[in-house]
């Protein structure tokens, strides 16, 4: 076991997969000589050369389309979005070509590519650098969307994403890169389509992902002291959603709270609630509740920013209210 920071866990995943498969390469802004804005690809160019760790000009839509073309012709590109928000500039290539081309081509081509990088609300980074694109991209057919949250799952999920034959949007969180965890010395993979049961419980199901998993974990400590026993599920896969794990939990607890960092309108939680109503309505003892970010551009001011995203205290209160400790 070796204590590993999350950004290094990601780096290990890329390094191992590049060593294993010569068609795997990295491209993006400052991924090479600079080592990536969060050092995920630090010094990999020294080992693999400039072509396999390709520093691109600042041309998001074009280098994303270039990765699509490379994937269609047999390579396995990993794009680093320096900040995932920049990928709004590549929305056309991600939606039309990465997402839909396999279908519109009637199965002529497959597009094995990973688009990874930091998303989420950081610390006073301003609105444009604090986006949660998972909500925008969830409607695009053909994309898999994954969010990692710990060094262990970051490494195992990224390795699986690189080996997957489909385009995978892989969300990291800008505030989680320095999380530490002991990682196994042996190679391991984490499946892309399985949610992770973080804590087993019986009173309520809390569905969350990315950094909000850690806010939930903090809230759970308070809830435990009050004798409550929530089940916490890290969704991991935001598309497709793992309804097997979600359903099993709902059949046990009959109550669901979604805690998400994306905005409320058209968010991941909105989709989850609609799907739960479709599939598990008869199992519910209460309407599904969602705690989401406010529907506003993330403000720069620190106090306003903290009011924008869900805080652990709000999660505690919501759970207490739902299980009837508070009215």
């Amino acid at each position: 076991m070796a204590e590993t920071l999350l950004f290094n866990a990601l780096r290990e995943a890329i390094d191992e997969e590049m060593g294993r498969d010569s068609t795997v390469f990295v491209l993006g802004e400052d991924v090479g000589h600079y080592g990536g804005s969060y050092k995920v690809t630090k010094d990999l160019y020294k080992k693999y050369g400039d072509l396999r760790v390709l520093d691109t000009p600042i041309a998001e839509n074009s280098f994303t389309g270039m990765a699509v073309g490379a994937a269609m012709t047999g390579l396995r590109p990993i794009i680093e979005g320096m900040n995932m928000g920049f990928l709004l500039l590549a929305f056309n290539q991600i939606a039309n070509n990465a997402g839909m081309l396999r279908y519109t081509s009637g199965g002529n081509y497959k597009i094995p590519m990973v688009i990874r990088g930091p998303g989420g609300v950081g610390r006073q980074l301003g609105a444009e650098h604090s986006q949660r694109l998972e909500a925008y991209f969830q409607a695009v057919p053909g994309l898999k969307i994954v969010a990692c949250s710990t060094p262990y799952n970051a490494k195992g999920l990224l390795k699986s994403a690189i080996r997957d034959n489909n385009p995978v949007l892989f969300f990291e969180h800008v505030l989680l890169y320095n999380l530490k965890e002991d990682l196994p010395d042996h190679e391991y993979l984490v499946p892309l389509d399985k949610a992770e049961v973080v804590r087993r419980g019986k009173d309520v199901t809390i569905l969350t992902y990315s950094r909000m998993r850690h806010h939930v974990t903090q809230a759970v400590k308070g809830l435990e002291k009050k004798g409550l026993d929530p089940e916490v599920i890290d969704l991991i896969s935001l598309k497709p959603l793992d309804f097997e794990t979600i359903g099993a939990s709902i059949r046990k607890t009959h109550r669901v709270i979604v805690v998400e960092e994306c905005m409320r309108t058209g968010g991941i939680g909105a989709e989850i609630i609609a799907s739960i109503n479709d599939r598990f309505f008869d199992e519910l003892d209460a309407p599904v509740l969602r705690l989401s970010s406010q529907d506003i551009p993330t403000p720069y001011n620190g106090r306003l920013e903290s009011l924008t995203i869900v805080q652990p205290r709000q999660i505690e209160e919501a759970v207490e209210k739902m299980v009837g400790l508070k009215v």
Partner: protein
Amino acid sequence: MAQERTLPVFQASASAIRQEEGLMLYEDMVLGRFFEDKCAEMYYRGKMFGFVHLYNGQEAVSTGVIKAMRSDDFVCSTYRDHVHALSAGVPAKHVMAELFGKETGCSRGRGGSMHLFSAEHNLLGGFAFIGEGIPVALGAAFQSKYRREAMKDASADQVTACFFGDGTTNNGQFFECLNMAALWNLPILFVVENNKWAIGMAHERATSQPEIYRKASVFGMPGVEVDGMDVMAVRAAAQTAVERARAGEGPTLIECLTYRFRGHSLADPDELRSKDEKEEWLARDPLKRFEAYLLEQNLASEADLKAIRDKIQAEVDESVTFAEQSPEPDAAELYRYIFAED
């Protein structure tokens, strides 16, 4: 009508071709023309739907470029893609069946006119939005370089031809990809089919430098201006560019001056282009011109050419029969092909 650019003169006799080669080029151009004429007929008879953009008048470009390439090279097209697909070797019946929305179509009826694909023929697509095919083509060209240099595969010398129109050359992806292609010396041909018009937007109303081939110079890339109504001229320019690309000497921008004989799409009333302009360009019909050349050079007799036209007409007619008789996609497969495992 705006002042016409003077078409560059190409002395075809200086690069004489063999009879077999001449007839092959002729056949491909005839196929392009007859196929599109049949599409118009089928569209008006209600056999195909949506937006259908025909290629009539531009045949010398598709034939001139693609027939100068190898079958393992890559071709990337736009929404006006039927004829590029045919030149790349996709059978006419598979293109026609796609336009009819049938399971036997080259995109299994899921793509339609603007989304023709064939992995077997290295046709990267059919891209419906302006400019979005250029980065994809760049990726295929990057792949050739990557295999050769990073994977040490000496056989990876495939070249990519990327087609697009004059309107696209005002889009960012054009400039971004010219930059990367030149920066990394990628084996790619950027082939501009300058037919003078976007839909209703005249080229000179949309760009500050109408001579598109000149835009290559700022990237340190050769830019060539070609008479796009002369298949021999296009072919010669393409051969030089392909040779350069294959030798690792990098990209070329080829501006083919051409004209579409029909509206932007079959839904376009085509009210803005003047009669004079259309007549001037119709007089340069690339098929008639090449016929005259073949006869002049004694490379073919009238009977030879007629035999080719009859053969192609039969092939196009058969493509319609094939498309009509082919099955619709199975409704149970509505969700198939979303993911690689489907």
